[in-house]
């Protein structure tokens, strides 16, 4: 019974308990409590790192991701409690819809943590699939035509993705089996890595293609991204926050796990080019799409695609600095984007709309909320002194030294997206405010908590984190 089991057990039990709780108010509290517990549990490995088992492992790569996931899950649960109550008050949601909302939330957290801590390729796959199943229902929570359409699309696209990922996993086993012999060992990540050098490189490549397309669908890489904007826009905002803040990260994490195996194999075709291509296409597509968005949540969903593109590009470029930047960017993006979604959630509740055109002059009418949004967008736009700037600085400098043309493309994409972000931000936050605001209790503590973390990271990175990043960056080749 290691701490990892505890970390996984808390959300599991919470999910079961919540499934039985009828009152959504009580459930919300339990949800928060469970999340807090998970958070504490997830901090324990920092002190004493549990040893690896065939199914579970904690290493430099996932130790902080587990903590991050637990943290974002915790803050989101806080936000969610407030948000859901208000949604019910204004009648957008009826308690009946919320019957399994919190249970699903905990189940989702469980799958995320399982995917992170999984040491077995099969377990990883099951976890990701579970994540899909749990989120589908939450995306469709509002039961509006649009919500159902979004959920259904999300389900189908990710379902196919999952299927392809499974095929990739099988191929990976096939590649490992001759070296590792039959049985579990050949699917245990911690065992695969040391022997990856002897695997059949051609099979590795084939497997990686399927895994990239499969899990890449969940990462939201263009052209596999179609589910992402609508799922973010039509689902309840807490779910948008966790989708952007956790799911995308975890999906990317699983892709990276496999990239490590390829990196360890000298003969395998470097997965770099594939990832660079998909990253660039996502970045460019998203940055242009931003200009035509009218729905505020869909707008920021596209910004998530953009950033996933940047991160994927960074890992595709490879090299210690670019990988470091990618890892940093993953962390920063999940914190910042979830913070933004907290703010956006309150905004859309107060304004009673998600149409960007109907939201103006927030810094005048809702100073705290407005400035929170400004800070969030400034951070996500890659402006210092926030952490995103550091990663983008590293990506651009290192890639320009090696592939000027690609770096120029990235900069172009960044600038185009930047223009859209600033344009919309100025419309949302500045100018004369629009009236017709509904009173709402705003809980921005989570948002500011995230932003403070991002700000600190931009100025000062703690030593251990850096050393983890660096070891992982080395493994990622």
């Amino acid at each position, binding site marked *: 019974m290691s701490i990892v089991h505890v970390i996984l057990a808390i959300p599991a039990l919470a999910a079961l308990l919540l499934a039985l709780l009828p009152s959504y108010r009580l459930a919300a509290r339990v949800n928060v409590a469970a999340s807090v517990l998970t958070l504490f549990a997830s901090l324990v490995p920092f002190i004493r790192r549990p040893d690896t088992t065939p199914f579970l492992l904690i290493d430099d790569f996932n130790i902080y991701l587990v903590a991050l996931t637990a943290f974002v899950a915790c803050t989101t649960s806080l936000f969610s409690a407030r948000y859901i109550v208000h949604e019910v008050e204004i009648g957008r949601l009826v308690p009946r819809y919320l019957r399994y909302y919190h249970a699903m939330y905990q189940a989702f957290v469980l799958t995320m943590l399982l995917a992170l801590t999984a040491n077995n390729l099969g377990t990883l796959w099951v976890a990701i699939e579970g994540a899909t199943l749990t989120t589908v229902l939450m995306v469709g929570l509002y039961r509006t035509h649009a919500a159902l359409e979004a959920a259904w699309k999300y389900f189908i696209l990710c379902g*196919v993705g999952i299927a*392809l990922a499974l095929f990739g996993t099988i191929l990976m086993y096939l590649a490992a089996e001759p070296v590792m012999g039959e049985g579990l060992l050949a699917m245990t990540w911690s065992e695969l890595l040391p022997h990856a050098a002897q695997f059949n490189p051609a099979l590795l490549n084939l497997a990686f293609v399927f895994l990239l397309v499969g899990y890449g669908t969940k990462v939201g890489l263009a052209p596999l991204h179609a589910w992402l904007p609508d799922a973010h826009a039509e689902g309840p905002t807490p779910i948008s926050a966790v989708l952007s803040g956790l799911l995308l990260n975890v999906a990317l994490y699983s892709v990276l796990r496999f990239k490590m195996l390829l990196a360890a194999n000298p003969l395998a075709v470097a997965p770099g080019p594939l990832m660079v291509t998909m990253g660039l296409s996502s970045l460019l597509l998203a940055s242009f799409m931003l*200009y*035509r968005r009218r729905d505020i949540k869909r707008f920021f969903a596209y910004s998530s695609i953009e950033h996933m593109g940047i991160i994927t590009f960074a890992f595709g470029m490879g090299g210690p600095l670019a990988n470091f930047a990618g890892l940093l960017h993953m962390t920063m993006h999940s914190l910042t984007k979830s913070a933004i979604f907290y703010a956006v959630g309150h905004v859309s509740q107060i304004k009673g709309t998600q149409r960007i055109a109907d939201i103006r002059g927030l810094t005048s009418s809702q100073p705290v909320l407005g400035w929170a949004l400004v800070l969030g967008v400034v951070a996500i736009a890659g402006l210092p*002194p926030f952490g995103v700037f550091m990663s983008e*600085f590293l990506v651009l*400098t*290192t890639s320009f030294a090696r592939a000027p043309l690609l770096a120029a493309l990235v900069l172009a994409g960044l600038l185009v997206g930047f*223009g859209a972000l600033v344009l919309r931000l100025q419309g949302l936050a500045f*100018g004369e405010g629009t009236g017709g605001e509904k009173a709402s209790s705003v809980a921005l503590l989570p948002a500011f908590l995230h932003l403070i973390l991002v700000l600190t990271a931009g100025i000062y990175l703690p030593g251990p984190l850096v050393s983890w990043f660096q070891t992982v960056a080395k493994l990622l080749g």
Partner: protein
Amino acid sequence: MLSALSVGLGLYALAFGTGLAGRRLLAAVYLLSALAGATIAIAALRVLIAAGPAEVATLPLGLPWLGAHLRIDALSAFFLLVVNFAATLISVYGLEYGSHDAEPRRVLPFYPLFLIGMNLVLVADDAFAFLVSWETMSVASWLLVLATHRQDETRSAALLYLVMASLGTGALIFAFGILAGESGSYGFAAMRAAPITGGKAAVVFALALMGAGSKAGIVPLHVWLPPAHSAAPSHVSALMSGIMTKVALYGLVRILFDLTGPPPWWWGVVVLAVGAITALLGVLYAVMQHDLKRLLAYHTVENIGIVVIGLGFALAFRANRLDGLAALALVAALLHVFNHAMFKSLLFLGAGAVQVATSERDMERLGGLIRTMPRTAFTFLIGSVAISALPPFNGFVSEWLTFQAIIRGSELPQWLLKFEVPIVGAMLALAAALAAVCFVKVVGVVFLGRPRSPQAAEAREVGNTMVAPMAGFALVCTLVGVLPMILIDILRPVIALLLPGSGPALAGSSLLWLVPLGADRSSYSGLIVIAAVAILATVLVAAIHRFASNRLRRSPAWDCGFPDTRTETEYTAGSFAQPIRRVFGTTVFAARERVHMPAPGETHAASFEVTLKDPAWEGLYRPTATAVSFLADRLNVVQFQTIRRYLTLMFAALVALLLIVAVSQ
């Protein structure tokens, strides 16, 4: 120095904190800023006088494996002096002006933050710290511009500003990327140790020019500058126009003179061309402008051009081992940096005073303020003469030195330069003359003549806390104009740092005499000139009043016998600029004049309108914007597909990747 710097930055930070607290502490914010500015400025001055070695420090911040490196050498110290001295006076001005702001809370926190950013840029000694400070500066100023966010044009200006700033930062990031190399050694020390050459150096040069230039506002990257600078509150405009552009130039000097190796001669060619075009176009834009603050902003573009010309000569001379002349050119450039910071701040503060008194920026609705606001008018007049590069003020000295450098340009061996130098000289001369035209227009229309609107007629002089800083700037302008050597002496360590072995700049000079190129060459003594004029004038006054007549009678203006008291008959800024518009505007700006004269009997008023087209905007920015929106529209269809089509996309992607793998095997 480091201690003083940290104290100063601490004070700024404190001001930032109090600024967050809200408008009740307005005075505290500006006082703290002024105090901080003074602290750093004095320390920097002492460093320059002592001419000691560079001070370095490393903080455990920024990139973890690198840390934040700080370094204060003569160059940093000089710019610290410029920035913080001006900032001190401007902050004092803010004490009263700030209380006139519509929403002080949108200014107070970001004003000190802006200053912190600029100070950090000047002391940063590694690429990351440099860029973080650089962008912090941009963000803070962007928010300051948005202080007047309720006007729509402000928002568009702010957007354009921030996007252009980020473009510049992107260019700088790439430049540093090359300088740092694949190993990613971002420290400036490492870059100095291993100077790059050849193609890489060329790319760095281009990127640095683009990056720093976009912030300094060199043509054609200038379009954001006038709207942004004029939209901000006036004391912020003073900071942006007078100081931030200088910080940008610091970046340029730091990269081109310090971080890269010895320059090839063609750098000089490029920089000279850019500078000359910037100077001339800037002033032409300005002449056509009738919005006071926009006009001043365009003059910033012009003066940046003049500085860049100086830098260009410094590069060209340095490339040809003519270090003495390079030193001369560099002195001219840096001196102009200082001078422009002084008189441009002064002018913007004056514009602010006018705005406070009349709430007008449109020159066509001003006039006759010299009678209602005599002290503002007087300081503004000094600023105008100074910026017009006329003796006995400081603007003239730096341009005179630049001309001296131009005259020696013939000693450059390369033919291209030989041809370029006289043309650059001609353009600079033209720019200087046009600046004079422009400021006759400004002073004549805004302060002289008769008020063109009730607000102008009812204007009242602003308070002492606003006049005093302007007077301070005016004093400095005069002092440097009369005794330039006191400043040039301070510059010597900077020259020694950037051009080692160039010997003491302007060796032959003494406190009284400015002798750039050796005894019998050419000389200028501001003090004697001003003294002589003053003495002669007083003698004349005394003599005439004593011996001839001192009688005086007030009676209506003669005006060729048709005196017309209506102010509509006054000459306006538009009509004043008409000759120049006729001469240059039609070719450069495709200026069109449309006159509608109602037929006899029609009652409605006649109308006259002028349309100008900014070539840079038409040729560069509009196409870009069109392209982006076109692509956005085209790509937007992806958002509106059926699930089956999305699946098809996925399928296509998969098959494509599989094919790649199949082929690669």
